[in-house]
């Protein structure tokens, strides 16, 4: 009796989970249907699987280009964030004087500022740098990477800071006595011990930068620089009436995320839990 109840709740839970993902199902099936089929029944399976809309969407979105841009911007930003914030956090923890505390408090306090409060003046600052110092901050991938680093710095330092506090100093002191420079101590001894938190920081940032729409939309104006969210925005604006084409495009944008999720699910879920609890 108890056993059948258990089996029943297992089936029920699985059905709920499937129903939960029904929007994905709707997106998938309709990306294969022609106009008449779309109108007839939006929930039915398609009568034939042709990848015609995928090919068209891929071309119209310039998908491979956008994918490359997103990948490049996300990865390079992430490397800078990890290198700079782990180094900063380590110094702030190990040299626990008034300046360090002040710097740390400033970082934490700015986490309260919403992006909308900064976006317009930020564009003015970047424009000023471009016209007066001739550094191309706007409409370049490098400029966007620079801003990504600035925006994700506080959260990353905050997470590293909390973690480093629990790392014992003894090893570092021994290495210093052996004549290791600070740089050597950090990269050879400390950084390898920060693996767990580095994964957390990386996952949180990668998800938010990969999906970010607003900042790239303000900084990148060239068609060839568009990231996936940007090209989706322009593509969707143009083809809303052609739902099959639109759904094929959206499916394309989700594929990289599903692949990423499939390979690093364990880390993602652990990282999210760890990142949120801080």
């Amino acid at each position, binding site marked *: 009796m108890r056993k059948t109840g258990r089996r029943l*709740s297992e089936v029920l*839970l699985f059905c709920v*989970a*499937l129903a*939960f*993902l029904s*929007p*994905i199902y*709707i997106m998938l099936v*309709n990306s294969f249907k022609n106009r008449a089929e*779309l109108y007839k*029944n*939006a*929930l039915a399976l398609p009568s034939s699987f042709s990848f015609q809309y995928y090919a068209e969407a891929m071309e119209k979105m310039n998908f491979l280009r956008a994918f490359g841009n997103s990948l490049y911007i996300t990865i390079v930003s992430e490397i800078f964030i990890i290198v*700079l914030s782990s*180094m*900063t956090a380590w*110094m702030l923890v190990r040299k626990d004087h008034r300046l360090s505390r002040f*710097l740390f408090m400033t970082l934490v306090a*700015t986490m*309260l*500022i*919403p*992006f*909308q*409060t*900064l*976006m*317009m*003046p*930020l564009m*003015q*600052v970047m*424009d000023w740098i471009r016209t007066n110092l001739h550094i191309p901050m706007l409409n370049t991938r490098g400029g966007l990477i*620079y*801003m990504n680093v*600035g925006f994700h*710095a*506080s959260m990353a330092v905050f997470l590293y800071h909390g973690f480093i506090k629990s790392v014992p100093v003894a090893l570092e002191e021994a290495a210093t006595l052996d004549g290791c420079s*600070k740089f050597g101590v950090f990269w050879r001894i400390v950084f390898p011990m920060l693996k767990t938190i580095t994964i957390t920081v990386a996952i949180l940032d990668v998800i938010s930068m*990969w*999906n970010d*729409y*607003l900042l790239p939309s303000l900084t990148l104006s060239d068609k060839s620089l568009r990231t996936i*969210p940007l090209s*989706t925005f322009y593509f*969707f604006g143009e083809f*809303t009436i052609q*739902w099959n084409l639109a*759904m094929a495009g*959206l499916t394309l944008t*989700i594929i990289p*995320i599903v692949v990423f999720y499939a390979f690093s*699910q364990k880390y*993602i*879920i652990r990282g*999210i*839990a760890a990142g*949120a*609890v801080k």
Partner: protein
Amino acid sequence: MNKSKDRAWYALFTVPLFFVFTTVVIVPFLIGIYYSFVKWDGIPANPKVFVGLDNYVQLFQDGRFLSSAWHTVEFTVLALVVVNVAGLVLSLCVTAGLRVSTAARTMFFMPNLIGGLILGYIWQYIFTDVFESIGRQTGFDSVFRNWLLDPQLALLATVIVFAWQMAGYTMIIYIAGIQGIPEELLEAAKVDGANGRQRLTKIVFPLLMPSFTICLFLTLSGAFKIFDVNLSLTKGGPVNATEMFAMNIYNEIFSYGHYGFGQAKAIIFFLIVAALTLTQVILTKRREVQM
């Protein structure tokens, strides 16, 4: 000698990050305060006229801004309830020790990885064409019609999309909380004759207070600052009925070119977000059960 060397290392490790951080966050924040006191259309050649507090006074007479603030409050309250109830229920389901738990957890969390913009587009299709199609076929066209044309339903639709995205996220945090509850405590209660409901309300919920703090805080600030889903699902429509705070600021600045006025709104937005988050953290920290 040693001291100056120490300082040099300190600078080498911290200055690069703080340089970027200052130019991207601190400087824009400070000049943003200045911009909120001027009248300017965003064209560099045109003068920035200092108007003192005029922008702030004008802001409280801007009907569209006030109604966007109201939509945001409505949306945030609904989203807080739906997201947290859903997240909590899902977390209780997947920690019940069933064999499909891991698969279910994976599936519930999935939407959280998809960006708000893309989620909004998928659901835009569902709330318009798919709903109409279902309505045509089943005859339930009082429910299954184009939700995004009705101001109330469009707001509700935004809540649903946001909840779909966030429920899995809060679920993960509640799961971590539930797994942190010592098994012996629940066993002891069982021995003492507490039934399932009593164990839930008297032991599990009080011990989940830290998780509640985190989840409420995350949903509150996430909902209040919603932009991407808002943009892709309804674009603020129909007739601005779902235009939220963040989108109103964006439109004021970049669509209408009221840079100073829009920035004043952005400063007010910051003050509200900061006040909300701080109050919430202080309030819930106080209620947490000490273990």
